């Protein structure tokens, strides 16, 4: 038998050069707009007015970032986004956990029917209910308020579904052991089951935070006063002229600034995001 043959290694996918080339091409396609944005943000606005191809040439400057400090409301919008994203995430985690526990563990009339109704929320697009919601929030005077920006996102059908499935996956013997340990239902929820759902909480929390941070549609409708803008709306409102031929560098710097928290959340919680996307396919 020939000895120059190498042992088959199932993990050695990089050996397939075609796949590697395709992966590199896709990576470049995905990363190019980000690199373009960062490039624009470190170029002088006047230079960019002459042509955006100057992004490939020196000199570069941080003046656009310095200007965020002095000549923009970006910090206020940043704060608004932070309040809305954290508030919405907290609300979703509390409500989805309680609802998930109830659907998975408690016996109450019409449980299955109510669960199906909640799941309908996954199928109804936000645009379909936006006029009615706008009217309701108008009646209650909730527009241009933090609570008005947070509330719609708190009713997360996906969150309830995720938490219900996660609670269902916890063996019932755990509850039964706690019952024999003389724990009340609330104590079983709080001390025994809820800590076991931490991976699902992390996943749901990250997705909710990212969604709330990037949300454009509802804040655009609900926040009409500039001081209540979130970052996404604020940056859009910074567009000063047609085709953004002026202040493009400054706008890009604001966009990079807006992306930073998302980037930080992603880097810190990357493991949980990967787990969530793979959906626990193995184990």
């Amino acid at each position, binding site marked *: 038998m020939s000895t120059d043959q190498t042992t088959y290694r199932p993990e050695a996918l990089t050996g397939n050069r075609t796949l590697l080339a395709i992966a590199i091409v896709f990576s470049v396609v995905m990363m190019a707009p980000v690199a373009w944005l960062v490039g624009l943000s470190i170029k002088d606005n006047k230079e960019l007015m002459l042509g955006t191809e100057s992004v490939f040439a020196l000199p570069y400057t941080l003046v656009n970032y310095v200007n965020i400090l002095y000549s923009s409301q970006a910090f206020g919008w940043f704060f608004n986004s932070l309040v809305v994203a954290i508030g919405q995430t907290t609300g979703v985690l509390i409500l989805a956990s309680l609802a998930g526990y109830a659907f998975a563990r408690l016996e109450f009339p019409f449980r299955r029917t109510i669960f199906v109704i909640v799941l309908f929320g996954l199928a109804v697009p936000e645009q379909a209910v936006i006029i009615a919601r706008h009217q309701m929030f108008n009646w209650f005077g909730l527009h241009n308020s933090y609570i008005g920006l947070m509330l719609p996102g708190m009713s997360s059908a996906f969150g309830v579904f995720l938490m219900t499935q996660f609670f269902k996956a916890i*063996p019932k*013997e*755990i509850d*039964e*052991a*706690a*019952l*024999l*340990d*003389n*724990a009340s239902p609330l*104590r079983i929820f709080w*001390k*025994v089951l809820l*800590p*076991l759902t*931490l991976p699902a909480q992390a996943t749901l929390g990250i997705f909710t935070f990212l969604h709330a941070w990037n949300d454009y549609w509802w804040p655009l409708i609900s926040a009409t006063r500039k001081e209540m803008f979130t970052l996404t709306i604020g940056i859009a409102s910074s567009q000063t002229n047609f085709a953004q031929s002026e202040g493009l560098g400054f706008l890009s710097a604001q966009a990079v600034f807006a992306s930073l928290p998302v980037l930080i959340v992603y880097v810190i919680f990357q493991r949980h995001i990967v787990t969530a996307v793979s959906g626990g396919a193995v184990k």
Partner: protein
Amino acid sequence: MSATIEITNVSKRYGALSVLDDISLSVKAGEFVVFLGPSGCGKSTLLRMIAGLEDVTAGTISVGDQRVDTLPPGKRGVAMVFQSYALYPHMTVAQNMSFGLENIGLPKGEIEGRVQQAAATLEIAHLLDRKPAKLSGGQRQRVAIGRAIVKEPKAFLFDEPLSNLDAALRGRTRLELAQLHARLGSTMIFVTHDQVEAMTLADRIVIMHNRGIEQVGTPMEIYRRPASRFVAGFVGSPAMNFVPLKSVTGNGRTLTIGTDGLGDISAAFQLPSSFTPEGASLGIRAEDVSVLPDGQGGIALKAEVVERLGDRTLIYGHLADGTKLTAETDGRSEARGGDTLQLVLDTTAIHLFDAAGIAHHSEGE
């Protein structure tokens, strides 16, 4: 602390489906009782009803002098060890053991004392700071028992706690459980479908079958004097041999029992006048069927499969009429599949089962 357990006319139904029907049983204080039966016979359901994890459709359950079927699980004074152990994965061993004690508001010092004492008893003191994921199956099992011990319950309930362990560890843990029972002197109810566990651990075995209790007795009573054909066939490995009856003749104590495969057998029996051979069968265990040395006349068995277990040899074969029979001989037997062997029965160890499966035992038994 130990207490009696009284189960009185207990039934369990799920809608139209009856799972347990009019069960009554008394467990003495300090007794080790094993519920033994095939899957789906209702043994775990009965245990869970005692624990309070299933409601009782009819009847009452008392622990000590207190009726408990009206109380929630935590108020019944019983502790349970689950098949899956059901340890709290996010808590350390110490936290697992102390959780129940915290819930009843015991002072911290007493909780620590009880946990330390139980950990020392079970030799898990070095594991107290570990979480269940860092423990082996046997260690988790000990922690589950420790969690039960610290509560100082009136009775321990075990729901197939050894079934997740490998064979060697199961044997060792079985022995430790017996030692633990001897040390604590607590009332223990143990559910299993493993007859070796039942025979080795139990003071009394409760054989369950077909929504009810088939027989209650000591392990040797169950083994030597089974109440029914089901018990005779279920307990013992290999299972008891059954041969159809053709006739029963004779007066007084000694009867001549006619069969096709074994021929006519004389044995001492006192049968009721209603006994008829139609649908009845003769039962005899493999160990009571001996292989005669070559050349001696006996009952011919055509060997099909020979199982060598070291200390003994099991010979599976068929009689002249085709009836299957298992015989046991010593470990040095040189019998092989295809051989024709000569057998002799210990007629004092014969059982007769009527058409309804009710057992009648040889007077020699």
